[in-house]
Every structure is written in structure tokens, then in C-alpha cells.
């Protein structure tokens, strides 16, 4: 793998991270802590929305974020031909 495609691969990776970590921050620290009182005026089932994010929703989104990350990175690895085939290749 040459230097420029290595750099491109890394830059793509950093873009994904920036996007996913921003998403991570918004659902947890944003919705669950900083804006929790504001969001509580909206209802989702028997929950205030802020309370739901704080005690349920953020966790579901965390799982979703890792799934998105795994899919994006596996695709990126294949595009650049850098996937790790393991010891038995």
C-alpha cells in the first residue's frame, strides 16, 4: 500500500470517527444531560423524552453507532484492499 492511499484511508477513517463521535456526544451528553429538562416536555410512551434518553435511548444509540462503525470500516477496508484476513489466509 503506497503512502498516498494510506493517507487517504486514514483520513476517511478520521472522518467516520468525527461523524460518529459527534452523534455519540449528542445522544448522551446532549439529550441525556445538557438538554434533558428541555426534552422532558415531550412525551414518548410514559416517559419524558429527556428521561428516556438518559435511562434508555442513549444506550440503544450506542449499540447502533458501533454497528454503523463496523459496517463503514469493513467496507473501507475492502475498498482499499487492507482487510485483515487472519492467520489462515
Amino acid at each position: 500500500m503506497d503512502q498516498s492511499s494510506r493517507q487517504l484511508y486514514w483520513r476517511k477513517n478520521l472522518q467516520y470517527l468525527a461523524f460518529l463521535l459527534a452523534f455519540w456526544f449528542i445522544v448522551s451528553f446532549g439529550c441525556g444531560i445538557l438538554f434533558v429538562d428541555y426534552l422532558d416536555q415531550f412525551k414518548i410512551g410514559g416517559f419524558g423524552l429527556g428521561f428516556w434518553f438518559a435511562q434508555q435511548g442513549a444506550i440503544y444509540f450506542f449499540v447502533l453507532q458501533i454497528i454503523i462503525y463496523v459496517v463503514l470500516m469493513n467496507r473501507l477496508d475492502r475498498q482499499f484492499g487492507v482487510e485483515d484476513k487472519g492467520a489462515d489466509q
Partner: protein
Amino acid sequence: MNETAWIFSLVGLSFALYIGIAIWSRAGSTGEFYVAGGNVPPVANGLATAADWMSAASFISMAGLISFMGRDGTVYLMGWTGGYVLLALLLAPYLRKFGKYTVPDFVGDRYYSNVARVVAVVCAIFISFTYVAGQMRGVGIVFSRFLDVDINTGVVIGMGVVFFYAVLGGMKGITYTQVAQYCVLIFAYMVPAFFISFMMTDMPIPQLGFGSELADGSGLSVLQKLDSLSTELGFDPYTDGQKSTLDVFFITAALMVGTAGLPHVLVRFYTVPKVADARSSAGWALLFIALLYTTAPAISAFARTNILNTVADMPYEEAPSWFSNWESIGLIKFDDKNGDGIVQYRGPHATDFKNELEIDKDIIVLANPEIAQLPAWVIGLIAAGGLAAALSTAAGLLLVISSSVAHDLLKKTFKPSITEKQELLTARIAAGIAIVIAGYFGINPPGFVAQVVAFAFGLAAASFFPVMVLGIFWKRMNKYGAISGMITGIGFTAAYIIFFKFVSPELNSAEHWLLGISPEGIGTLGMLINIVVSVVITLVTPKPPEEIQQFVESIRVPVGAGEAHELSA
């Protein structure tokens, strides 16, 4: 069968299973002892990580803590799950590409320095012992209540089981027992939750029952009922926060970042075959953890409603049997201040009566099946589950301590000439000694399980996380920055915690805290200090050598990790 028979048979069966697995998966080489030969399938690694990670604090204490904290309990819920996103995105794949045995290995190699390695070893051992102390108290509580043996005997039995599979099987034995332990603990956690949710709301799935209407015909939702009961008895409303937003923010961040810096979790990502497996096993781990973590707040709310409904103004004579069971071992304390023979359970804002009841947070989960009058086998299940949670975490931590001593200190630093056989023997002896020390903590336990564990996170957040992330994402980072960062980070955090918890506990309140940050949340500030110190020191000292910069380049790309895994099978 009666309750005791169920408890003995379920706990006995689960112990027999762990020992059976240990015999089947003995470790023959250091590679198997430290990282299970590097060929654990990602789903199995996810299960093992989940059990490794979910300790007595998660299983026994957390729902209870939330039950008493209301919305503020979110610090544990988000704090102990959000870190997996950081782990998956910032650490796991790169550690797997690096592909060695321990966290100090990475620090020592990346920072081309045995000083950095030794500092990392000291941090790892310090964090692991803090954490293991919390597990041992959990083991003691379960034994003393459920098996009616004295706490000391209980701890010795627990240690005996861990000794057997950790010393014999190392990481390989631990991994497969943890897979079994996850199954035991999640089953034990979910069954009573389904029952209780169904009884209270007609909706068996606790995550949904939590937001449903109560089945008592009142037309109120669980949370509305809980808010009104709480306010009536002089407590703060359940769905409101009491802690300052800043403190909630800092505690949550410390727990998240700490998760991503805990050595016993990080080493799990060395055990999978490929880089892609490291990413996906972090996802599996979080999925398995989320199952318990989204159930816990539902249990908290149900249990709180049940308790307020049952005991708030109950005549002492008519107290149910669980009340006296837990009272007899001191986890429920009743003091009839006005002598009327009625248990007045009141919050700080009550005007009619003084509070006469103290309920220990740790019993919410353990007593929940009894409070909800579930069948005897469910109670046995809870006992087996609590032990599974405590033992699986204890074993993972003991392995970190043993590999730190045998691999990082002896083999890599002081006596590189020892053979693999000698190293393996040392690792086993170190694991044995660590178990004895952990047993001592079990018999002379420190404070609350979850509290003690929360400190381990602060320390991990302030020491490992910054040097590892900077080591991967910033090529310029050098050894001077890393060493001074780790020392200032962990030093500051430990000093702050020790000052407020042990030296001057009377000053431990918001007006004396630095910037209003509690000792639980100070790890976040410790981490920021670590980062600032690392960056400043790095910029005024020489660049790392060329081969280190290439090393960083190489761990950023997955290809070749499988072959590079230098393991002797």
C-alpha cells in the same frame, strides 16, 4: 423444594459448570495463558467481555443505586455503556493490530521505554486491586444472605473456585467460563424483571413496562405513580435530577472514558483472530451489556414503587419475611423513633413524621424477587447470578495482575532471559498470590461496591486512556509526554479521591469540591490534565524515533494482523 434447597443446587450447579470448563480449557503456553491463543470467536469474546465487564457493581448494586438516585442514576447507565463506543472506535482495532499480550506492552513498545512500561504496570495493578476489592464485597454479601454461611467462609469458597480456573486456564479458562457466566447472570437478571414487569404493568418486557400504565387500575404510568408516591413521602420526584448538571456531566464522562481505559477490558481485544473481529466484538459486548443496562432502570423504578407501597406506613408486626431476613444481617435498619410500632419511611422533605427506616442500596436487586413474592427458584437464580457477575470480573482482574507481574515486570523488564515455562509458572504463582490478597479485601471489605468500583474508573480514565489514544492518533507523541501525563493524571485523581474519601470525609460536599466536581467525576479532570501535560511536554522534547512513527503507521492499517500475531500455540 424450598428456598434454601434451590439456592444450594443452583449455585452448586453453576460452580460445577465453571470447574468443568476450566478442566477442559487448560492453558499450555503463555500465549494461551495471556490472550487465549488469540483465536476466540468475536461473539464469544463479546459474551466474555460483557461478563468480564459487568461486575458485582452492575448486577447487585446498580439498580439499587438508581432506585435511590432517580434520574441521576443515568450517570451509571450512560457512563458504563458509552465507553464501548470509545473503545470500538478509538482503541480496540488498533490494539488488535498491535497484537501482543497486555496494556503495558503497548505503552512500553509505543513509547520505546521501560520506564513508561513500569508506570503502566503500576497503574494497571493499582486499578485492578481497587476494582477487585469491590467484587469481593459482592461475593461476601451473596454468601452471607443466601447461603447462610459466614462471610469469611463464603469468600474462601469463591476464591477457591476462581483460583481453580484462573490459575489453571489463564485467559483461555477465564474466557470460556465468562461465556457461561454471562448466560447465568443475564438469565438471573431478566427472569425476575419479566415477572415483575408483567405483574405491575401487564407488559412483560421491562424496557417497555417501565414506560407503561400500571395494572392497578389507577390509570397512572409507572413513573407518574412513582413521582407522586415520592413527593407524598417527602422524597424528591423520581424523574427529576438532584445533582448539578456539571457534576452529572463529569461523572458520566469519567465512567465512559474509564471504561475505555480499564486494562482487563482492553486485553480482551487481543484475544480475537482479526482486526475486524476486534471491532465487531466490541459491538457484541455492548449489545449483551445493553440488555442488562436497559433492564436495570426498569427494575429500579419497579422496586422503588413496590417498596414505597409496601413499607411506607406498615405496622412493624406485619412486616413480610424478606424484611426481617435483611434486617437480621443489618442491611435494613428500623428505628421506631416515635414508638408507635409503625414503620414510617420518609424523605428529607417530609413534615408529618421523621424517617425511621434505612435501606441498603445493595439489597434492591437481591431482595426484589422476595419483595415481589416470586417463586423460590428465582431467588436461587439471583444468588447464582450475583456470584457469576462477581467471580467473572474478579478472574479477569486477577489475570491482569498476574500478567503484569510475570510478563511486563519479569519477562520484559527485569529478567528477559527466563524461559516460557518459567514465565508461565510465574504467571500462575502471581495469580495465586493476587487471589489471596483479593480474599483479604473480601474479608475486610471497603465501602459500597459501586462506589469503590467508580474510583477504579476515575483512575483508569486519568492514566491509560489519554496515552493510548494519543499514541495511536498523534505520531508526534513521545515517551516524555506519556510518562509525565500518566503520573500527573493518576496522581491528581488519586490524591483528590483519597483526600475527600479517606483523609477529610467531612469536607466531602459540593461547596468544598474543586469547581463543584465530586470525587466520582474527578477522573475526567484528571484525564484533561493528563492530556495537557502530555501535549506540552511532548512539544518541548525531541520527536520519537523514526521506527516508532512507522510503528504507529502500521497499527493504523488492519492488513497483516493475523500473521503478525506472534503466538506459540
